[in-house]
């Protein structure tokens, strides 16, 4: 496919982050979003996508619970996990700052 060559050239250039392999989070986000939807109940079965999407959101929102269940696929995706790391880092920095201020007074 022609475009693949084009995309490689794009990926190799400068400031763009290297394309990470698609995580399950990426894949689910794409395949659950839209697409051709068959409506009706004659001879057709569908996953309950709304329910599934809600469950996935819930899992990501309650990271600790999910980890206990062994569900951690979003951790490899920087766009899901960066926030957590950032908050942890901010917490550490704020704690250090508070300690520093307390020493001074």
């Amino acid at each position: 496919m022609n475009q693949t060559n084009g995309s490689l050239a794009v990926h190799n250039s400068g400031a763009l982050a290297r394309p990470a392999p698609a995580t399950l989070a990426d894949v689910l986000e794409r395949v659950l979003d839209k697409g051709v939807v068959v409506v009706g109940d004659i001879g057709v079965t569908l996953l309950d996508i709304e329910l599934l999407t809600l469950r996935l959101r819930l899992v990501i929102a309650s990271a600790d619970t999910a980890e206990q269940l062994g569900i951690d696929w979003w951790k490899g995706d920087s766009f899901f996990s960066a926030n957590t790391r950032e908050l942890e880092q901010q917490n550490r920095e704020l704690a250090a700052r508070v300690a520093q201020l307390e020493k001074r007074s």
Partner: protein
Amino acid sequence: MITQYVYGIVDADVRVPETDGLRLTRSRRVAAAHSEIESAQLEGIEQDLSESGRLAVLARQHDDVVRTLADAGAVLPVRLGTVFSDEATLAAVLSEAESSLAVELDRIRGRHEWEVRVRAGRSTTASESSGTAYLLARRQEARARDGLRDALASVDQTLGGFADAAAGPEPAATGMSRSYLVPDALAGQFGAAVAAAASELETRGCVARLSGPLPPYRFVAVRMEVGSLA
């Protein structure tokens, strides 16, 4: 019960590798790409959300097949987990929806989806040593955030100029996650524009990521009504 799992809708005359049980059911102008699945395999699949669970396996397989179809020509991705009881039902629904599917196929022909994700850099405010410096830094940071949101909105506008359509949440101060439906003829220019934007955003501490070409997942929304066949 053996049922038919559908991955995507393609042109009737497309040639796809019929491997791993992938088959085409054709109407006059369009075809559905599907394979057999034991219906029990889908029951309760949403209960197991682990990386190696049944849902993960299905989602990856679905994505793999849709990408294979996209390599062969225009494809309308079908929503994950769409199963027909048999090929006859599938064929009936397909011919019923044929004209709208053909129109949609023409609309996305020669186009692919590209994902652009930008993540804002980490805040550094909390490391400032004095109270005044801390407050000044916070004010600067708030300004930088506004600046970044405007910069991302402008990037979005530029990239949208190469695209038929864009999807995803509006760019925010924390970053952006947008998809663009880009004609293949403009993919090179689009890529260059993304690379240029990435260099500029890097100076603001942002990381940009481009994924594509992808099947037009976010730009196809078609309802196939089955009820009318009853």
